[in-house]
């Protein structure tokens, strides 16, 4: 059971108040075979975007109403992991710095070379892909943990803390044999190939 992971084709979301720039970008990205959706304002994007959709966001930093930086902030609040590439004007370096500090993956000054933009978009898509894979894996681990019984969970906690079966048996007032059975069950349910693998999975979901 893998939830919260959307395996649909990645989409490039473009948010720019300037229709000409928006449409030109759409045509350019379509010419290299990308799926593109455009929005005229940050709010329009927020209303339409479902968080699990993979891709990247190409965002104009200067916009009337909600600025690019504000949109980025709203997305951060929602723990949205969509990578953001900012398009900046000539004098916007301080704003770009702020955007990078807030987690943007990149920024590009306009007017720009098409190849530069395309390269950055590809990098952002790769990053989104690996982010989502990691996120998916964490979700899987959480689901597996949920299948453990309370007793198995207790045994797991002691195992990952490095206790020997004999110690666990004494702690939980069980026979060593019973501990061994629980432990084998935990390994199976967690799909762990080794003790090290088990420990890594538990650490990953904190």
């Amino acid at each position, binding site marked *: 059971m893998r939830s919260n992971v959307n395996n649909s084709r990645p989409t490039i979301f473009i948010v720019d108040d300037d229709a*000409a720039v928006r449409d*030109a970008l759409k*045509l*350019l990205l379509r010419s290299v075979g990308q799926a593109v959706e455009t929005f005229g304002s940050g709010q329009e994007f927020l209303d339409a975007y479902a968080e699990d959709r993979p891709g990247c966001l190409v965002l104009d930093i200067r916009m009337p109403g909600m600025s690019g930086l504000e949109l980025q902030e709203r997305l951060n609040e929602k723990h949205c992991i969509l990578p953001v590439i900012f*398009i900046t*004007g*000539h*004098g916007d370096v301080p704003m770009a710095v702020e955007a990078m500090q807030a987690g943007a993956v990149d920024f590009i000054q306009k*007017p*720009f070379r098409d190849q530069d933009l395309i390269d950055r978009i590809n990098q952002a898509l790769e990053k989104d892909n690996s982010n989502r894979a990691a996120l998916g894996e964490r979700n899987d681990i959480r689901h597996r943990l949920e299948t453990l019984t309370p007793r198995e969970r207790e045994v797991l906690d002691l195992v990952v803390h490095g206790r020997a079966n004999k110690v666990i048996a004494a702690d939980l007032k069980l026979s060593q044999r019973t501990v061994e059975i629980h432990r084998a069950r935990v390994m199976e349910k967690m799909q762990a190939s080794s003790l090290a693998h088990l420990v890594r999975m538990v650490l990953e979901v904190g």
Partner: protein
Amino acid sequence: MTLLRVAEPQEERTERLEREFQAVLDAAVDAVVLFDHDGRIELLNHAGERMFGYNEQEVIGLKVGLLLPGPFGSHKEGEEGAHDEADYLSPYIEASEPRIIGMGRELLGMRRDGSEFYAELAVGRVQGTDPPRFAGFIRDVTVRRNAEEALRRSEAQLSIAQEIANLGNYVVHFDGRFEDYWSPHLYRVLGRRHGGGYMGVYDYLATLVHPADRVRWQQVRDELEAGARSTDIEYRIVHPDGSLRYVHHIAQTTCGADGRPLRQVGTLHDITDRRLAEDEARQMQDRIAHFGRLSTMGEMAAGIAHEVNQPLTAIATYAQACQRLIANGAVAEEDVGVALEQISAQALRAGEVIRRLRSFVKNREVRREVLDPNRLLEDVRTLAQTDVRHHGVRLRLETTLQLPSVQADAVQIQQVILNLVRNSIDAMQAIAEAQREIVLRTQLDSDGDIEFMVADRGAGLDETRTEEFFNPFFTTKPGGTGLGLSISRSIVRAHGGKLWCGANPGGGARFFFTLPALPASAGSSR
């Protein structure tokens, strides 16, 4: 004093002398007291009775120390016995000279009521008596002493005041009969140590005046020596220890009947702290103004850049998309058609931004008024004063009197002149301060128009390239916008004049512009 009398009986003579002696005593203004070698009082005259508040009979046989308890400062309040022994009298008593042996000694006198006063005492030994007897003449000098004390106090206060104000004063005698007077604090103001030989104030100052202020200073000195009544000048001096000070020098000359200067009194006020504070405040102001200008310009520039950048970005992106579509062989005619249409629309949009910008600049409300050309220069001088002084530049006006009026927007023309002055200041920063001078001139040109000139002694200019200066964005200054001269020329042209420049024959650059002169009637009727 010996009175010569002939054939007088001894007894009569003695009586007469006694009467005369008594009359002299009674008439004396000073107190007279006779006392013996033990200091016991034998006689006190009327004046003495009045001075000390005693009756003669009360003091006879008492010690003279009762009246004259001792020298100044030796007597202390409540110290018993201070006037029992008048030790200070013993030198008189022991001295054997048969004449007045003490004169003009100042003592403390004490009245019957205990109050004290300053007394001057002269003591004479009465001749022919053994053991010796003495006559003391006592004068109350309280008034004189008080006057002296007041003078001393006022001198001390003046000295303190000078110290607090960091101000010194002097007196110079031009006739050479007396040496110049230096007030004690003047030494401090001029960084000179007390002692050392005599030196005339101006001769000493001449060694201190800052090289860049020397010409101006010498001019003032010459004027004063030639009989100018007064002066008021600020300049810099360099103390012998090398520190730079600003002084405010005020002087007033007194002339004799023949008009020749006799004497000059003056003050030199060290205003360094004030000047530094002023300079700091001005720098702060300049910086704020500069940032203000920068931020307005910067915001406008960023706005324009954004406005033009949008269509340029769209054009570039459409063109690149078309290239890719063609390269891919995936050309959809419709896509390319839309792209080309957009490319041309966006190019027009960029042009529109620039057109709007120009009309925005042009359509500023212009207020034309009838103005006096010289008044324009004077206003600019006031406006530029701070800037000019701050950069060590002299600003000189060479106005032609009685020029026709012009019709102009005062603010705009002032901006043009200020901009030229500003350029001149910048152009002269590399040269010695003493040579930094800007001349503002008005005159009537051969066409009957008013010609304004701003001339400097800066780096000058390449006369073959002068037209380039007026191109927008041409600049030789780091941080310059390159718009100043271009805008200035637009303003002058809008007023029906022209703006040009050339080399200054003596070095530096000259910028000229003209404004049409109004017919005389228009100027006067308003």
